[in-house]
């Protein structure tokens, strides 16, 4: 035990030591807001104060305190609302039950009927998830679900069954903070994924290599860490992994029982064997670590930082929570180079604005249209690579779309508690900057905002004017 500890210590990276607040470097509102932005979709004044009170470690424990369960499992009422849809079932669970109790022919008929309602069901699922992200009680679970959705992509552009899209989203939520090994095995059996990457067409003697390729290139190892031959042999191992409706089936007759040579090993491998061989590769833990670092901290981890994270991930047999906890409590996370440098994804921007302004959810179609203009509709990534992110979010058109969407959201009834009592323009502007940008702004910009506040006579008009200016600032695009 003692030896183990020593070895672990020696391979950690100094930047992953826990950040300890001090009088020179206090855990203040900028840091608390930073945590709530990166581990969720932004924090209101009350949440920022709560996190400051909990301290950096307590706050991460609180954020990580969600169960490894889907929304449906946590609360059976928490499902997309399909009740307005004219169709065979009131919600996905009822539909799933019907699908299970019927013959294949009846199921086919039912699915056909459902196709008409499918698009609406997709919109309901989209709206349901946006609401969870904008105001749910487990922001980190949703933030991780969004991360895994960009990683294990499936797009409604090609996977046209809203039911399967919802079930995959729930699977990602259930496993979001659990164990990557288990998640990889589960996602590889997920009907939406099998369908999206054509594994239903992967048959003995006629392999379809799509899934085998992407599972290594995008889900585990990264390009360059396997050969074309590994793809061919891996595809043979996944032959017969299919789905019937929303159920995984192993079709033994379509499975290739021959010997395969995969990543340097030989045997009569099946899909699970192939996944376990991949998971043994150090490159796999590094690939996932690098992505998690970029998602939560900043896009350019040093190799030594990736190695340290990867080691913790492998030592813990791919348990995710300990690694996420290390990351979110680390000096690296709270260093000046990490704060306010991430370009908000459109989903982060919209969900965060709704959350921070305390406004009601706008109609789903309005949110959908806005996000489409900004370049990110959740559940509809452009391709299997997901969204490239970073600077790719920003061009002249998307920037206008972001500003205009913020301005529109700020036309709703704002819930900014306590602000109407602040009468002096500078104090009110400082409070709004604190709550929305959550970092100080330059003096000359502050001056413009104060003038904007003073250009209106009524307090609520002044507040709205400043909010609309703030959401149209470059600073607000960053977190």
């Amino acid at each position, binding site marked *: 035990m003692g030896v183990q500890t020593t070895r672990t210590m020696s391979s950690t990276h100094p930047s992953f030591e826990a950040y300890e607040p001090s009088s020179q470097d206090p855990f203040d509102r*900028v840091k608390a807001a930073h945590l709530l932005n990166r581990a969720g979709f932004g924090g209101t004044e009350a949440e920022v104060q709560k996190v400051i009170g909990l301290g950096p470690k307590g706050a991460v424990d609180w954020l990580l305190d969600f169960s490894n369960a889907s929304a449906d499992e946590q609360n059976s009422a928490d499902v997309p609302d399909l009740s307005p849809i004219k169709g065979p079932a009131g919600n996905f669970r009822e539909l799933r039950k019907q699908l299970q109790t019927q013959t294949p022919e009846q199921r086919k008929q039912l699915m056909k009927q459902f196709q008409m309602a499918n698009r609406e069901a997709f919109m309901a699922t989209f709206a349901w998830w946006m609401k969870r992200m904008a105001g749910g009680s487990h922001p980190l679970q949703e933030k991780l679900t969004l991360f895994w959705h960009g990683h294990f992509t499936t797009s409604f*552009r*090609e996977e046209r069954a809203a039911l399967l899209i919802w079930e995959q989203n729930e699977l990602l939520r259930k496993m979001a903070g659990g164990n990557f090994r288990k998640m990889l095995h589960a996602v590889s059996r997920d009907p939406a994924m099998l369908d999206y990457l054509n594994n239903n067409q992967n048959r003995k003697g006629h392999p379809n290599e799509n899934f085998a390729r992407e599972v290594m290139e995008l889900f585990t190892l990264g390009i360059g860490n396997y050969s074309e031959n590994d793809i061919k042999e891996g595809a043979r191992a996944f032959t017969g992994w299919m789905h019937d409706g929303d159920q995984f089936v192993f079709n033994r007759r379509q499975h290739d029982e021959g010997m395969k040579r995969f990543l340097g090993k030989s045997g009569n491998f099946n899909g699970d064997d192939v996944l376990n061989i991949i998971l043994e590769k150090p490159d796999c833990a590094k690939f996932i670590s690098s992505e998690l670092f970029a998602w939560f901290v900043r896009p350019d981890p040093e190799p030594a930082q990736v190695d340290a994270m990867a080691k913790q991930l492998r030592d813990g047999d791919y348990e995710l929570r300990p690694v996420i906890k290390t990351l979110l409590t680390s000096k690296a996370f709270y260093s*000046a*180079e990490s*704060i*306010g*440098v*991430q*370009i908000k994804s459109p989903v982060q921007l919209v969900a965060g604005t709704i959350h921070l302004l305390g406004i009601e959810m706008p109609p789903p179609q309005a949110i959908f249209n806005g996000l*489409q*203009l900004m*370049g990110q509709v959740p559940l509809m990534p*452009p*391709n*299997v*690579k997901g969204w*490239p992110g970073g*600077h790719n979010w*920003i*061009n*002249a*058109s998307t*920037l*206008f779309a972001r*500003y*205009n969407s913020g*301005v*529109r959201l700020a036309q709703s009834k704002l819930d900014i508690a306590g602000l109407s009592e602040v009468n002096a323009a500078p104090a009110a502007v400082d409070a709004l900057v604190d709550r929305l940008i959550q*970092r*100080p*702004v*330059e*003096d*000359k*910009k*502050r001056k*413009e*905002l104060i*003038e*904007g506040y003073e*250009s209106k006579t009524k307090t609520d008009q002044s507040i709205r*004017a400043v909010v*609309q*200016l703030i959401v*149209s*600032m*470059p*600073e607000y*695009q*960053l977190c």
Partner: protein
Amino acid sequence: MHSNMTTRRLFLQKGMTLVAASATVPTFLDQTVLAVANPQDVHNTQQPTGKDGKILVVVQMSGGNDGLSMLVPFADDTYHRLRPVIGHDASTVHKLNDYVGLHPSLGPVADMIQAGKAAVIQGVGYPNPNRSHFRSMDIWQSASREDQIESTGWLGRFFDNACPGCDPQVGISIGQTLPLAMQGEKVMPLAFERPEAFRYNGPDHDRYEKLNKLRSTGASSNSHKVSPSGELDFLHRTAMDAQLSSEKILDIVRKYQSASQYPAGEFGQGLRTIAAMIRGGLPTRVYYVSLTGFDTHAGQRQRHDNLMKQFAQGMSAFWKDMENQKNDERVLMMTFSEFGRRVAQNASGGTDHGTAAPMFVFGSRVKSGVVGKHPSLTDLDQGDLRFTTDFRSVYATVLQTWLDAPVKPILGGDFKTLPIVRA
């Protein structure tokens, strides 16, 4: 407009950090730029764009255009046998040779071919064709191999290659979002559905502009230092680009008057906007516009006829405009679709997703005629045509002979060029 393109470009290339000026000066950009620039700088930053540059207009036919109804193999018995309901009579098509003719509504296209200003390339496609709209569209737009996922487009790579520090106005797409084809790594072209929608909609326009123009200095009276990150500079730069482009484009389009009658709808009005921008002297080298609705699985005849009519009207209005503007020598127009359709009609009077299809090229400097080999209607691959010309050959031709760009770094290989552009 206070700025001109050269100074603005220079300003952007120098980066925001070189200049400091009061935002209250109305001619903010010009003055600050002139203050730091010397004539040599201005000379060195001239881009290969501008009023005299050559222009490419790409017309995307979305949904899978039925090539066999656009360029009809009227003399082939198989065509009439496999398409008893939706086929076109030999007597109604505009014959181009003794085998193919144009859709009955494409009289203006036939006239342009006659006048030596249009060409059609037959049987364009790629190996192992994908029949998914999205995937096949991505293949066409990225010009990737059919089994590779690319996140940049062929035109995006052209911009990156030709002018990495280029103005975003170098490429303009009419449509909600930037198509993958225009997506690059260094240059961010513009996209908007209507010029009126390409603008900031908030109430306090003056203050919004100042907040977006003010340069980050790091100065703050608060205890925390403001760290002016590269991202913040990048956002300021893009915001300023957006604002200047928006003002300029709106101004140009509002003032534009044209004798041409463009058809209603996004395609026709998009072409009109493009004509206005060409007339307005933007430095744009590539415009992109779409005609949608080609996914004709059922009741194809009427729907496709309407689309052909719309295409012919828009196209001929645009070319009349170009000739009136005397810009016709500068413009090349190219059409494509993600795939053609199945040779045999289906049971619903429509056609299902297919493969190869013709591409059209228009312009006063086009070498006219019917190019390439028409695919056989009997030697099929799962009911679909076998392509005879790789679409990347057409791209290579446009890049090399029209846009004067090197082919290999953009398309990742060499492709045979076609004799469709006059020197």
